[in-house]
């Protein structure tokens, strides 16, 4: 039950994009079409879940054991960068069909601040291994939900008559703001 609450909390109540502003770059950049947005979401779920597992293991069994937890930022960002490269190579070799679906988005994820953000939040909240993975998965699902919804709205917005200076990013941000208001409704879900 606790795990379920962590997952729902991460996905809906504290949505990464809409309430914590992490991963805004792909949220605005790769949300023009629903299928690319879904592809990006899939890749993010994949990477964040694995990254939370691995950073948690590294933190508990290396950084804490050697008493060098102050190196966490450096270690995490390098681990995430290496991990993304490794996942990419692994998928290319072993699961080519998944690679074709996610391939393009994988390198873009390295600097998605959501990945590093989740790893750091897991440490901050002193989650154990399972809770970390669940939190990572929930966060990534929240990201996917948000990006797919906004991509759907953007596809419709394309045909609307928008004031010239609001075309492009501004209208996307306004839509995101309205979505953020809607997501406030979830805040009563968990006390």
């Amino acid at each position, binding site marked *: 039950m606790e795990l379920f609450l962590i997952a729902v909390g991460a996905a809906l109540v504290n949505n990464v994009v809409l309430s914590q502003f992490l991963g*805004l*770059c792909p949220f*605005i950049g*790769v949300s023009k079409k629903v299928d690319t947005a879904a592809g990006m979401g899939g890749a993010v779920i994949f990477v964040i879940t694995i990254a939370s597992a691995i950073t948690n293991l590294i933190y508990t069994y290396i950084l804490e054991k050697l008493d060098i937890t102050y*190196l966490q930022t*450096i270690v995490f960002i390098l681990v995430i960068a290496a991990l993304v490269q490794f996942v990419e190579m692994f998928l290319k070799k072993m699961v080519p069909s998944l690679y074709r679906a996610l391939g393009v988005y994988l390198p873009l994820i390295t*600097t998605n601040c959501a990945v590093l953000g989740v790893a750091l939040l897991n440490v901050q909240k002193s989650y154990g291994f399972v809770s970390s993975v669940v939190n990572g998965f929930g966060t990534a699902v929240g990201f996917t939900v948000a990006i797919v919804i906004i991509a759907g709205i953007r596809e419709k917005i394309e045909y609307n008559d928008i004031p010239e200076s609001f075309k492009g990013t*501004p209208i996307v941000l306004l839509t995101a703001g309205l979505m953020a208001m809607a997501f406030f409704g979830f805040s009563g879900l968990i006390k």
Partner: protein
Amino acid sequence: MNETVKRLKCGIVTENPTFVQMLGMCPTMAVTTSAINGIGMGLTTTVILILSNMMISALRKVIPDKVRIPAYIVIVASFVTIVQFLLEGFGPSLYDSLGIYIPLIVVNCIILGRAESYASKNNVWLSMFDGIGMGLGFTIGLTSIGIFRELFGNGSIFGKNIMPDSYQPVSILILAPGAFFVLACLIAVQNKVKLTKARKAGEAISICEREDGCASCTNTLCMGKSYTMESVMGIKEKPDKKMTVGEALKEKSKDKVKEAEDNDREREV
């Protein structure tokens, strides 16, 4: 001497990271709930930007081209860690209110963007001033957005109440949706300025090719893989390895203008 002043002016006015380049949007939206948070985040970023710019510029002949991005990341991350501890020791209240966004300065695109486009090509002195200029530009941006949101969302500036008692604060401005609305208006104003300028100059009007925000600078970081640029940003020719993000964007906008012209022609036919 002249060049240093130019670097400062470039960072604060002509290439202001917040208002002109629209870089580092994640921290901009997250920490500008109050003016003091904005200025704190801005100055922290400035310190890190100056230090990392100087270090990268000093090591620019030592770092091999192929591993430059990981090397930059390690340098930036080290400085971020140092500054994080200093802040925890000397400014605990600011440290608490900025929270997770301090370590996340590592992935702030302004810092890696400056490293890639300026510090890796220029000497230490100029890179330092580039860091100061860009950092101050970012600080000014964050502080002014912070002042705006705090004034209208809370009726105060730097924690001091200045609005009359009868003023009802628009508290949505300091909540998450407010950040999106403020930023949307900011970019719309910027687009308006661009449009007016382009009209006056009689150029082809092309806004909204910057729909990517800081996704553009993600490309600096995808380890020089050009295919991501092509497929994600829709660039037709394979860009040179040395091509900077700005150039890539220009290239893209050219394509778009061309496309738009083609479409117009078809319609006329």
